[in-house]
């Protein structure tokens, strides 16, 4: 099994990483010479060149992945499962990986290659199984199917536009111009462009791990650009700090409710006012009465159940915590709302409530950037849709023009010839 996230010890050498657990613990000496020979033989056989004595932490991401694969092969694996193996690779590294995989298959290994990128699948696979919502929905021979068919199978049904009033988009309030964000030497966002109008919902779809969290961090004030610019209300703002984002009227609903959105051990009222604590304090002293009544008004207006302002926030259910987070943003009538995976993990009732709130904000003229991997959610809310794949954004398509095949192809990174700009 080769996971998307590596399980390696960066301070140990390649050989040590590979050999851990392969010998009896009570041997008086590790037979590293035999280990190295075996490793080199495997490297040579499959074209997976890595220096056995190199420190893993010094290797490139592509080389580290090779170490992960070598680890499995060293243990004489016959079946290799690769989970989104190209997510972290550069183009040439991915090409190299594909040829390695073909070589392995040719030599009799069985490979299961999990990916949402259709061209990769078509390029490497002999057979394709489509999974949707935890179910196997189709099985095809690669030679007898097409990207278009697979895209439709992935999305799985007629995509229907729900009944809701048409958007009346206002002026552009937010614009990203060629924004790149580099984290630990990897470009997590690659020169993305998008515009956001008042009174519309722009949906960003994509399989998770393709740059969504950095995109959300960019608008939240927690991620810093390395190139490009953000333009808010017609002014270039450079890097937003959290304080800037709040001051500009950007409401922020993070994807990780418990990790970022709320501090579970603090009271509900504290979580309600923490991000604008200066407004609820006098000379450094918290005006608790005003803060509590603010929390009360959120609880009332957004139907937050399961706690009073002074109860610990962790006791709220996910849906009610999300209503609290949405509420503390929407009650201030933000000009812009960032909603990252706003309904993830919620039950049906809570999902409906969250969606209703977002649509109400849109009616009130708020520009909403909705980041979601749930296609139903994006179709229910968004006016325009862009896909995020490997840190790049596709051109937008109007929701009315979207269909299963088109969206599936977009999410699979196939947009140059299919998507038409709106």
């Amino acid at each position, binding site marked *: 099994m080769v996971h998307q996230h590596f*399980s*390696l*010890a*960066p*301070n*140990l050498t390649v050989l*040590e*990483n590979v*050999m*851990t*657990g*392969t*010998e*009896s*613990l*009570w*041997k*008086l*000496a*590790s037979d*590293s010479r035999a280990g190295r020979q075996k490793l080199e033989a495997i490297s040579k056989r499959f074209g997976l060149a890595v220096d056995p004595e190199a420190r893993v932490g010094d290797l490139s991401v592509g080389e580290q992945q090779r170490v992960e694969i070598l*680890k499995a092969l060293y243990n004489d694996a016959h079946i290799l499962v690769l989970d989104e193996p190209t997510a972290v690779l550069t183009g040439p590294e991915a090409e190299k990986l594909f040829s390695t995989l073909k070589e392995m298959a040719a030599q009799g290994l069985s490979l299961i290659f999990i990916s949402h990128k259709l061209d990769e699948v078509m390029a490497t696979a002999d057979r394709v199984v489509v999974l949707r919502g935890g179910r196997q929905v189709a099985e095809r021979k690669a030679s007898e199917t097409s990207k278009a068919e697979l895209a439709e199978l992935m999305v799985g049904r007629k995509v229907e536009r729900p009944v809701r009033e048409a958007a009346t988009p206002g002026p552009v309030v937010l614009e990203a111009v060629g924004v790149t964000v580099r984290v630990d030497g990897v470009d997590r966002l690659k020169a993305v462009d998008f515009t956001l109008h008042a009174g519309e919902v722009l949906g960003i779809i994509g399989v998770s791990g393709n740059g969504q969290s950095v995109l959300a961090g960019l608008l939240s004030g927690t991620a810093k650009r390395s190139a490009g610019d953000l333009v808010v209300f017609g002014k270039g703002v450079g890097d937003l700090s959290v304080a800037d984002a709040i001051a500009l009227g950007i409401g922020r609903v993070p994807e990780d409710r418990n990790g970022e959105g709320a501090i579970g051990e603090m009271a509900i009222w504290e979580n309600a006012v923490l991000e604008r604590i200066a407004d609820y304090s006098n000379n450094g002293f918290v005006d608790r009465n005003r803060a509590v009544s603010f929390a009360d008004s959120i609880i009332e207006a957004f139907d937050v159940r399961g706690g009073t302002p002074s109860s610990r926030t962790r006791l709220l259910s996910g849906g009610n915590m999300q209503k609290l987070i949405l509420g503390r943003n929407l009650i201030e009538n933000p000009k812009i709302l960032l909603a990252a995976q706003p309904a993830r993990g919620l039950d049906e009732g809570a999902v409906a409530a969250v969606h209703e709130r977002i649509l109400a904000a849109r009616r009130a003229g708020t520009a909403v950037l909705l980041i979601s991997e749930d296609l139903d959610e994006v179709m229910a809310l968004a006016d325009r849709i862009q896909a995020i794949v490997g840190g790049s954004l596709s051109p937008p398509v109007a929701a009315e023009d979207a269909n299963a095949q088109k969206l599936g192809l977009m999410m699979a990174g196939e947009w140059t010839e299919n998507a038409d700009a709106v």
Partner: protein
Amino acid sequence: MNTIVDILASAGLWGAVLRIATPLILGTLGAVLCERSGVLNLGIEGIMTFGAMVGWLAVFNGADLWTGLLVAALGGAVFGALHALLTVTLGLSQHVSGLGVTLFASSFAYYVFRLLVPVSGSPPTIEPFQPISIPGLSDLPFIGPAFFTQTAPTYMAIALAILLAYILAKTPLGLAVRMAGENPHAAEAQGVNPMVMRYGAVIVGSALMGVGGAFLTLSAFNSFFPTMVQGRGWICIALVVFASWRPERALFGALLFAFSMASSCVFRPRLMAPCLIRYS
């Protein structure tokens, strides 16, 4: 200037360096082992104190010196197991738990000592380890008296440093311990139980710390008195960092530190520097 050269050239100074270094070597080896498996063991100061007391007590009650060291090792191992229980099984804060172990082990040592050895004018003594001259080598001029007329535990400490360096670097067991410290999830995925590795490393490491403490009472001195460990455990924690978590460098670091201690005691009247370690 002449006096400085004389002192540096005296075999007595270099003999003292090895003697001062021995408990530091043992303690640092123990701490390296714990930290390599991923557990910071701030219990070291108390564990060394307990080892010093319990090893001495065993010998005072008629055990031979080697049995005394063994008892000190077992005593250290028990407190190591307590620390492992708190930090590995319950996952409590390693810092606070380690301090708790230090406070408990040292106060428990003092309590037991006072209980069994009532206060008297001069502290009771035992017959400590005697220097062993290594035939041939100890007759060498200068080097002989400096390095080859130490007590047995000093030779043992040096041998243990080499042994531990070998185990960590060259054996499957050492690799498993390091993997448990570096990436417990990877260790688990490769069939190595990181919990077991950590328990083992903390228990064995703490046993080494206990022996390090016992060196003070069974070789450097011949009696036990409270606060005699005097922060040597904390010095070991610093030496681990200095040695970048390697046993062979720990040996070197302990010697270097001991050299500065020994010389500051020798030069003390001139430098007005505090003499940290009051024997040489």
